């Protein structure tokens, strides 16, 4: 239990620092690489929560595919590799105010609702087969709808980005 808490603390600290760097760094490519740290940290938290299938999918889809897409997007929009000065607009101060108020409110509400609710020491472990069973029985219709959504997004992206 102590080891899990230490692991949580280390990973969470790395994630929060990297997330701040994603939204503050002046270098677009570095923002994408800091995003990798955040996404890997989220995957590690999934493993701490005993959801290894979701963690594997997180690594495959996010780090494997989405970050590569981002890097391609950066490359194709010819963003300068070095520092760029005007990545932020003049809403920085109000953005900071909004997000600080939001985090204050959320933390207050969460603490009010759950206080020190412990997660179960040895919670139910779901094997990948049980996740699959659930997808293909209870959530069959949403699964099919998401497949169609993915196909539509694929075709839409090709049509939008096609050059003619």
């Amino acid at each position, binding site marked *: *239990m102590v080891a899990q*808490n230490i692991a*949580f603390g280390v990973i969470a600290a790395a*994630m*929060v620092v990297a997330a*701040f760097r*994603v*939204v503050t760094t002046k270098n*677009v490519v570095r*923002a994408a690489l800091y*995003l990798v740290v*955040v*996404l890997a940290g989220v995957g590690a*938290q*999934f493993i*701490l*929560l005993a*959801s290894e*299938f*979701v963690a594997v999918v*997180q690594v495959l*889809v*996010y780090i494997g595919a*989405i970050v590569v897409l*981002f890097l*391609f*997007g*950066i490359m194709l*929009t*010819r*963003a300068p590799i070095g520092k760029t000065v005007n*990545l932020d*607009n003049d*809403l920085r101060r109000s953005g900071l105010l*909004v*997000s600080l108020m*939001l*985090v204050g409110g*959320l*933390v207050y509400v*969460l603490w009010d609702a*759950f206080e*020190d*609710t*412990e997660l*179960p020491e040895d919670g139910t472990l779901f094997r990948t087969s*049980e*996740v699959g069973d*659930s*997808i293909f029985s209870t*959530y069959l219709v949403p*699964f099919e709808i*998401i497949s169609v959504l*993915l196909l539509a*997004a*694929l075709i839409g*992206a090709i049509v*939008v*980005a096609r*050059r003619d």
Partner: protein
Amino acid sequence: MLLNQFLVLSAVLFCTGVYGVIARRNGVLVLMSVELILNAVNINFVAFAYWHGDVSGQVFALFVITVAAAEVGIGLAIVLLIYRNRSSIDLGQMEQLRG
């Protein structure tokens, strides 16, 4: 482990993402901030799935990952189109729709 430590971590990630969406003017960076927000949601789903001992939260986290992949595909296609038409992806200059 407390349930709240995961929820507070996810709240912090969410608010960082909101700050990024508000304060960034580069289209690709705004999409990255949206990814931060979606990941915060996923942490919540999986934490509650573990807390309740119910697999539904994990299934929904998988759905959210899928939708995020579709969203990034479309989003980057739109950003590329903006870049091709205006040779800049500064969102502050996108004002054709202003009434």
